Each structure stands twice: as C-alpha cells, then as structure tokens.
C-alpha cells in the first residue's frame, strides 16, 4: 500500500483547497506546498491576509481557528543558539535569514492554522511582514477567536493588527516595554552570566573524557 501511495502522490482534497484559495486571492497567493496525505502550507501576501481568512472560512469550510502566531526569522544578533552559553556583548550582523516551508521574503512571518472539522483537513497560512514596520489586517472579522492570539503576537513581536479592538498586553505586565520574542531583544541576564546549568552536566559512562580535566586517566 505504501509503495503505491508513494508512486502516485496525489491529494485531491488539499490540491482543491489550494486551487480554491488561488481562485479567491489571485496574485495574493504567493506560494503553496502540499505534502500528499500529510499537510498543506500556503503563503499569501500581507495585503491578502484577511481575504485569505475569509476565503478559508467561507469557501473551504475551515470553521475551526486553531492558533495564530509569528516567527522572527532573523538569526540572533547576539550569537545566541542552542549551544551558546553566553550572549555576545554587542549586537552584530546576524547573517542571512533562512525560511521554512514555502519560503519567505521578509523578517517576520505571520502564521495561522485553521481546520475543517468535517473533513479533518487543516491548513497553515503564512504571510511575510517587513521587519521595519510589521502591520497587517486583523483576522477578527473572519475568526473572532483570533483576538487574544493577535494580542499575543502584538506584544511578543510588535506586529500591529489593523482594526483590532483591544490591542493591549495579554501576558506581559502592563508597563512592559519591548517585544521579547524578537531575536534582537536583549536578555540582560545572559550578558552578565554564562548559562549556569552547564556545571551540572556530567559525562555519561563510556563517553570520552580525555578532553576534560584528565581525572581518571591516571590508570
């Protein structure tokens, strides 16, 4: 069964969804990717963001709003990654950006996930937003449940949602300044202190510890 599915990768339902969106948005549909039997991603222009939401709800039966969030694709200017134990003292050139599925063009990518509870299909919608002034139409006219998600994206990434009725802090204290999930947001504790957890890490038995302090190699 698997080999047959691999030989003829086709997913009519998801292809039809992309076609419907392309029909509704025209040039607003920038890119799409269908993994047959797995999932579908579409990238729309920022101007078509609200139109995409309305089209998904009204023409594709995507009546269930799952979540809305954003990604800052810029690498950390402080050299912060999975392995770094301390931030660089100065912000430096973060290097080139790399985008995920369906690619990208700008620093911020808004993404939302909606589902069709009848067919079980879901779709992830993305939109590129420029780094200097990220701004987009609110999805509340299409999905009322987007309200709090947009407030979160606003406070964490500084993305302005046009037409949002109550764009105030959701999680952060009222007087908080800055957008903490932006990659260029400085974490001051990291400036003055290396990651303290590393002192607890011990080598597993059998791991090569010759590069360590040399203890135990005397025999």
């Amino acid at each position: 069964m698997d080999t047959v599915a691999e030989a003829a990768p086709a997913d009519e339902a998801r292809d039809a969804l992309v076609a419907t969106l392309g029909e509704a948005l025209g040039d607003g549909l920038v890119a799409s990717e269908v993994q047959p039997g797995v999932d579908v991603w579409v990238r729309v222009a920022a101007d078509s963001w609200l139109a995409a939401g309305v089209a998904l709800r009204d023409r594709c039966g995507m009546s269930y709003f799952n979540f809305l969030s954003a990604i800052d694709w810029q690498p950390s200017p402080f050299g912060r990654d999975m392995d770094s134990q301390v931030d660089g003292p100065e912000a430096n050139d973060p290097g080139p950006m790399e985008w995920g599925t369906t690619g990208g063009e700008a620093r911020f990518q808004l993404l939302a996930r909606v589902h069709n509870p009848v067919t079980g299909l879901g779709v992830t919608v993305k939109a590129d937003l420029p780094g200097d002034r990220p701004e987009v139409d609110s999805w509340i006219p299409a999905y009322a449940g987007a309200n709090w998600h947009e407030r979160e994206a606003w406070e964490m990434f500084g993305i302005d949602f046009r037409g949002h009725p109550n764009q105030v802090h959701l999680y952060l204290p009222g007087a908080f300044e800055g957008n903490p999930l932006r990659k260029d947001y400085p974490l001051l504790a990291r400036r003055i202190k290396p990651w303290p957890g590393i002192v607890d890490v011990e080598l597993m038995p059998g791991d090569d510890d010759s590069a360590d302090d040399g203890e135990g190699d005397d025999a």
Partner: protein
Amino acid sequence: MGLVENGKLPKPLTALLNISRKYSLWVYQWGLACCAIEMGAAFGSPRYDVMRLGVIPFPASPRQADLVVVSGTVTDKMAPAVKRLYEQMPDPKYVISMGSCANCGGPYWDSYSVTKGVDQIIPVDVYVPGCPPRPEALLEGIVLLQERIRSEDMGERWNGDPIVVS
C-alpha cells in the same frame, strides 16, 4: 489574650506558645506552576501525611494562614499578587519558597518575564531546592521552619502592621 497582641510575653509562656504555634501551622498553598502539583502530593497524600507534623493545609484565605508555601514560577506579572497575599497574612507569618523557580528563577534564569526569586518581593524563611523538590525535602523544610519557630522570640517576628483592606 491582650498579652499576645504585641508578642511580648514572659519567657515560659513564650516557650509554651512557640510549641503550640509550631504544631499548628496553617499553611496556605500558593501554587504557581508544576511545583504546585508536587506540593499537593506532599501535603495531601496519605503517603507523606503532612498533618502528622501539625501542618494544616486548608485555610480558606491567606488571612487565616500562618505559613505560605510559594511553589512554582513567579512571574513579574504575578509578583504584585504574591506581595498582596503576603500582606494579607496576619503576623507572625512565615514563607517557604519551594523549588528552583521560586528560589532563584531556576531554568528561567534568563527569562524576560520571570522574577528571579520570590525573595525579591517577600522575605523567605526556608528555601527548598529541587526541580521539583522531593516530598521529603518539602517536609524537611517544614521541620526546619518549626525548629526556627520553637526557638524564636515571637516579639521579633511581630511587625505590627495592620491588615489593609483595599
């Protein structure tokens, strides 16, 4: 007991009262994160029965509590509520900070939103380390606090601050 109101008592009476207070700690459970589950297991379960130590984990409000166990991650947004909770407790009052997060921020040591230790807001009597602490560790913390209560001069713990209702 007009004598007790300022905490100044003759020494034998102080010792007697200290023993009484030590074995009747009403503890308010201020669970903020995953340590709250561990606290519930340590306080509520028959295996680590905490009432054998005279600790009663059922006050209806902080105004009836002698001890508060702050367990879990204190965020900057939650901090005013923690401070208000402490202010509402009647003197003499005690605080146990349970778990790495409440002690110092724990794994969120570099976070933008986590208060790096509840002792920045309220005075802490006993720190219980661990992520989460074992129930035995929490009970040990309570025993340590009881030792402190037994040997203290109640007058020194008496701030005399009125409870402000606002």
